[in-house]
């Protein structure tokens, strides 16, 4: 197989990949939970704290200005990365979860009334379920769930049938963390927009694996986390169309989100600061900017192509194991291999693979309704990144075979 990336060279950028676990080389296949960080990001964080750190948007002093320039520079990098129209549309948040909560509590709470509907799908992560349930409790709105088929794909006819005059918002995962399914989001947005319904996309899993263009998608909101994108944890992004964000009330109150405060009346700041109360994650945002630079230098399309090769290789090898069942077999899929083994619980698989230096996730992946749908308590999940190799896939497959042997 001719590989489309120089992965040997790329791996040298990630110091942690030299770790040994239980005396064996680390095989890190838990990228859907969080990705590792390249030197470019680590160096940036260190450089910020050693040379450029102060609070942002505050002082007249040089360091504060330097930190502000870097922080706002990172916002510009993120804007270009997802091709947003304006920097005003890039809100820094803690992560995808906070972004969904922000939209639920600001947009949702100001717009929705009793009887209105929010439409999600049956493959959502808990972070795209629970914020809407809370909103429904607060407003009397109703959460509707579009079904999926046994491959883990959204059933478009049923999805469309659920869109009606009461539907006030659609929120859908771009790529499923448990199944790997990449949803036909462009089509979803088209049909929702045809009925005047805005669409939010949970992009936590999608954005590390493909080029995302929010203008081309025409989504109304897009949420993602820095830590799944080779950036630091504690920083994430909410993209929103400017017209929507402008009309939305602030979510949290505090410093930085105001223009003028008296005890009688407060005038809110402009976008994006209206939604960024308090001191933000400064170094983390700048680190995210460095991660974006790093990924763009490799090329998101190249990353996507390489990961598809890895997924295909891993799936073919996995299916050669008779007692292995792949959970999540969508036609359009990202590099996630969820599986179960006959008679061996995923938790045992996880502990045993760890003994071989292989890090996978075992559990419900914060998607318990998905597990219920497939009738399994949990799955084991190997999730790949562009720094993984076919040799690591071989190590995984060999490990699975050994576990089957030990369990007898």
């Amino acid at each position, binding site marked *: 197989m001719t590989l489309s990336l120089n992965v040997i060279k790329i791996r040298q950028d990630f110091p942690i990949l030299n770790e040994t676990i*239980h005396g064996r080389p680390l095989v890190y296949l838990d990228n859907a939970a969080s990705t590792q960080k390249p030197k470019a990001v680590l160096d940036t964080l260190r450089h910020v704290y050693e040379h450029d750190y102060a609070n942002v948007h505050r002082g007249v002093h040089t360091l504060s200005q330097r930190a502000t320039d870097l922080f706002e520079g990172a916002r510009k990098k993120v804007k270009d990365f997802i091709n947003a129209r304006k920097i005003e549309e890039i809100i820094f948040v803690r992560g995808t979860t906070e972004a969904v909560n922000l939209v639920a509590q600001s947009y949702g709470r100001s717009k929705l009334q009793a009887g209105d509907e929010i439409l999600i799908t049956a493959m959502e992560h808990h972070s795209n379920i629970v914020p809407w349930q809370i909103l429904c409790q607060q407003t009397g709105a109703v959460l509707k769930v579009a079904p999926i088929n046994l491959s883990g794909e959204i059933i478009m006819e049923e999805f469309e049938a659920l869109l009606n005059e009461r539907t006030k918002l659609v929120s859908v995962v771009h790529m499923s963390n448990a199944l790997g399914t990449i949803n036909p989001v462009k089509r979803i947005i088209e049909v929702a927009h045809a009925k005047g319904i805005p669409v939010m996309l949970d992009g936590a899993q999608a954005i590390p694996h493909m080029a995302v263009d929010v203008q081309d998608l025409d989504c109304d909101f897009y949420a993602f986390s820095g830590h799944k994108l080779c950036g630091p944890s504690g920083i994430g992004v909410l993209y929103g169309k400017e017209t929507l964000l402008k009309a939305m009330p602030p979510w949290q109150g505090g410093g930085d989100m105001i223009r003028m405060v008296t005890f009688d009346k407060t005038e809110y700041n402009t976008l994006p600061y209206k939604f960024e109360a308090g001191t933000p994650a400064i170094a983390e945002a700048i680190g995210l900017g460095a991660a974006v630079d790093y990924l763009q230098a490799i090329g998101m399309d190249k990353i996507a192509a390489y990961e598809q090769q890895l997924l295909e290789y891993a799936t073919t090898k996995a299916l050669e194991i008779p007692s292995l069942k792949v959970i999540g077999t969508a036609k359009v899929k990202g590099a996630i291999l969820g599986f179960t083994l006959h008679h*061996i*619980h*995923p*938790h*045992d698989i996880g*502990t*045993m693979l760890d*003994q*071989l230096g292989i890090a996978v996730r*075992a*559990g*419900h992946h914060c998607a*318990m309704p998905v*597990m219920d749908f497939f009738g399994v*308590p*949990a799955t084991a999940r190997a999730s790949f990144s562009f720094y993984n190799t076919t040799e690591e896939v071989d190590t995984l497959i060999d490990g699975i075979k*050994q576990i089957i042997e*030990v*369990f*007898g």
Partner: protein
Amino acid sequence: MFDEIRDLYQEVVFDHNRNPRNFRVMDDATRKIDGFNPLCGDRITLYVKVNDNVIEDVSFQGSGCAISTASASLMTEIVRGHTEEETHGLFELFHKIVTGEDTRTNFDELGKLAVLAGVRAYPARVKCATLAWHSLEAALKEDAETVSTE
């Protein structure tokens, strides 16, 4: 290959996982409780028959990993015929050993449960080994859901 992990996955554990003892519904149980480990999705339904402070019978149903299944299976064998107080005492000791709070290296006092002592080296698996026990503790408490035996 898996030599190091044999202290966790002993042959007895595999045996109880393959053939769990007392894996059945109990129609005349005096207490019944559902236990759940949200981290890994392990579920257990525990049936207990208590008569005059003595545990006459324990059985379980559910699905879980090898550690939680073996632990539940071993527990049902070991507590039968013991008083509630004795059972509580054994749980306390077992819990302290698997969480590493008790650092002893001789596990004779645990009897059959000694095969699970290796869990202490795997903090992520302590909840698996104690799910059945926590369920039993809850079932023995006064406020536990009581099964209707009508």
